[in-house]
């Protein structure tokens, strides 16, 4: 018995299924570029759902950044190689607008990006600066700002989210905040997961039972906060229905991973992209990439056998260490797929600075692929590796997205630029 080799032909191939890869596919679809996307399940499912642009410009200011645009101008001066410093502001704005309107149209409404950062709630009971939040989380931002009387509901058997902790840390800034614990309807087993609760809330009967349970403890709260469990596929509907049943706004706070907002996004992309004509091979790692004169070839395999994708341009969005875009070897850090040179500290000794929580962060968190302004990877001598190859997302060098709170900002902005560049190449080839 032989396996049939499956071959796909597309203009653009996107490697990676994280935020940058998904963003690249969105921008490509919007431009009518025929696209194939492949890559292991990205870290997408670990996201909180918040889309950060830039929360810390590295100026050492104690306060988080209120104005991300001012922060980007700061980066342009102090860290001109930072990916966000290399994308025109208009393009960043356009990229976020395209991205959030796409996912909103697909059923997970997000707020339109504005001029300032929002103060969003975290499961630790702190706030963080972020740029765009899901509609299911916006009432929490508003409630904090307006100091509404609010009760945070948590659940027996649910780990990774504690109402007591949220309230303990926020109480000083939000006196009207209280918490109550209820049992989730029809879930007798010990540990329960947000994912399971979210799916159960897609069932109208479960929403009614939950609303009844909450009613008995809500007191005089004007707004009700829950861990992020408001549905998986129809979060906006689940929120609206629960609000209706309770007669007041409800909102979600992200939980510790594995969290619902990330799984929502991943499942949504996996369903929507193929419907829109994109060839998606979601769970498989690309094994090799070959740059032939006529086409770029991606080689991979799924359960059913080998797959080859032929494309005219490629965007590498394979992430950093977690998703295998970069690997740490004895001799240093490598990019295993295309074997691109990796900008990195000169020796292993200097990966981490002495102070773990030091202000300047660790050199290792700045490593990655060097690119030109069109986001084309560069070789050792600073020359473009191949005009058909682009890179996007946190695989890029000269940014520490965790400290900078700019993961989505880097992913979405660089994907936007990479698609612009790839489009030029494809247009040339098609003429």
């Amino acid at each position, binding site marked *: *018995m032989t396996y049939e080799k499956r071959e796909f032909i597309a203009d653009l191939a996107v490697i990676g299924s994280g935020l940058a890869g998904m963003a690249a596919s969105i921008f490509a679809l919007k431009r009518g570029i025929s696209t194939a996307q492949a890559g292991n399940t990205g870290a997408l499912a670990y996201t909180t759902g918040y889309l950060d642009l830039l929360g810390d410009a590295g100026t050492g200011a104690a306060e988080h950044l209120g104005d991300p645009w001012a922060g980007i101008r700061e980066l342009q001066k102090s860290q001109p190689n930072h990916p966000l410093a290399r994308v025109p502001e208009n393009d960043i704005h356009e990229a976020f607008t395209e991205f959030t309107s796409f996912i909103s149209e697909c059923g997970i409404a997000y707020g339109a990006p504005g001029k300032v950062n929002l103060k969003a709630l975290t499961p630790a009971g702190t706030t963080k600066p972020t740029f765009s939040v899901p509609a299911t989380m916006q009432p929490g931002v508003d409630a904090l700002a307006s100091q509404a009387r609010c009760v945070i509901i948590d659940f027996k058997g649910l780990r990774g989210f504690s109402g007591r902790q949220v309230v303990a840390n926020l109480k000083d800034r939000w006196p009207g905040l209280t918490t109550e614990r209820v049992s989730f309807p029809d879930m007798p087993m*010990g540990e329960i*997961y947000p994912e399971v609760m979210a799916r159960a809330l897609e*069932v109208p009967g479960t929403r009614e039972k939950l609303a009844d349970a909450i009613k008995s403890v809500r007191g005089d709260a004007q707004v009700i906060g829950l861990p992020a469990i408001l549905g998986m596929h129809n979060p906006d509907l689940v929120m609206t229905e629960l609000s209706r049943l309770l007669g007041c706004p409800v909102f979600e706070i992200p939980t510790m991973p594995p969290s619902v907002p990330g799984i929502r996004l991943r499942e949504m992309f996996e369903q929507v992209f193929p419907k829109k004509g994109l060839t998606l091979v979601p769970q498989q790692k690309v094994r090799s990439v070959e740059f032939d004169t006529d086409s770029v070839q991606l080689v991979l395999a799924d359960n059913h056998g080998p797959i080859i994708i032929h494309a005219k341009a490629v965007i590498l969005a394979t992430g950093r260490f*977690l998703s295998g875009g970069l690997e740490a070897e004895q001799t240093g850090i490598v990019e295993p797929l295309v074997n691109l040179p990796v900008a990195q500290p000169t020796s292993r000794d200097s990966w981490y600075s002495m102070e773990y929580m030091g202000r300047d962060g660790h050199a290792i968190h700045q490593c990655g692929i060097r690119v030109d302004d069109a986001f084309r990877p560069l070789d050792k001598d600073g020359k473009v590796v191949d005009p058909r190859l682009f890179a996007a997302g946190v695989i890029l060098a000269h940014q520490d997205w965790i400290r900078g709170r700019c993961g989505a900002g880097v992913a979405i902005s660089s994907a936007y630029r990479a698609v612009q560049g790839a489009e030029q190449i494809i247009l040339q080839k098609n003429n």
Partner: protein
Amino acid sequence: MSEAKTPTINFKQKAMELLPEGASFDACLTCGLCSSGCPASGLENMDPRKFIRMAMLGMDEELSTTPWVWTCTQCKRCQHVCPMNIDISQLVFLARGNWPKDKKPSGIVRSCELTRSTDSTSAMGLQPDDFVFVVNDVLEEVRETQPQFKDMVAPIDKKGAHFFVNQNSREPMSEPDEMVPLWKIFHLVGADWTYSSKGWAAENFCMFSGDEAAWYEVIKTRVDATNELGCAVWLNTECGHSYYTMWNAINRFGMEANFKIESLVTYYAQWIREGKLPVNSDWNTKNIKFTVQDPCQIVRKAYGDSIADDLRFVTKKLVGEENFIDMQPNRSANYCCGGGGGFLQAGMTDQRRAYGKRKFDQIMATQADYVLTPCHNCHSQMEDIGHFYGGQYQVVHFWTLICLSLGILGENERTYLGPDLANLGL
């Protein structure tokens, strides 16, 4: 039960041998996505992440004896959502095989034994002669009572037929009229097909019992039977695990198979596209809503999303685009129904229904009146949890709906239709 002791497996070492490079347990981030997405989480106080953690800690004795391995349906959803691509089901298979036979769930063991007891490879022990008799008997009756099908055939052991068609034993054994819609479809499209008196049956619980040698033996009988008849395609009918056990075994054991292994679903879609099966949804004037259950064994574990797309194409043609509501999650990300992996035969009813609660919620969220699925195990499990949790939906085979749509579904072929459709087109 005897006192046979369960040997202890060194899971960590076995995992190193089994799992491909880069997907070893060492790579586990303990993120919990697997457990969060696994319907067996919490049963027997175990979940996939915990299983891995315990393996890493060398808690081999607990893992070698935990009955949880019989509640994991080996559906591979954990691997599907794992960022490191770690496959827990392989270790579960290993653990199952390691249990002394008399401690394994007797229903699975018995089904495997029955499968090996005759040349039929039928898990219900139906003899080749009896199968041939039932087929001919039913055929004769249809030819007499349904004049439109007076020339219909159901060949047995026809050399050189294009399709070698397998058959789940449940039909010839307990509901023989359910074979008829399938024959009608073959008749209509002019398929060149045959049953075989040897190796005709679909089920294979030997794989689920963890008995590799028995699994091989059953598949060998089927492969030999197909090779002997010289058929080009071994056609899996509406039964998930029979496809997977055959397809996987041929690769795993490097067997010589001079034919292709395909699923009937692919052909339904193809025949509809080609106009050979002119189905439509005109009959669905009441806009009855349908959803589809993707069997793990042919979707996530084998073909991937392409066959899931075929299922949706066929369904939409049959019931009308606007009357199809997808389950969430779906296709390769779908939940196992909880009837797979031998769970239906394992006698662990409470656990099986707890597992199936996820499926039940999924179905209820669609608010569909009917669930279509090309899998017998999914079918039985979804019916059972529907009754148990109080769902109002019906579960139907594709062949039923195809013949209903074509106006050729006979009176005795309607067991699974609800009252709303029971008399339609008679």
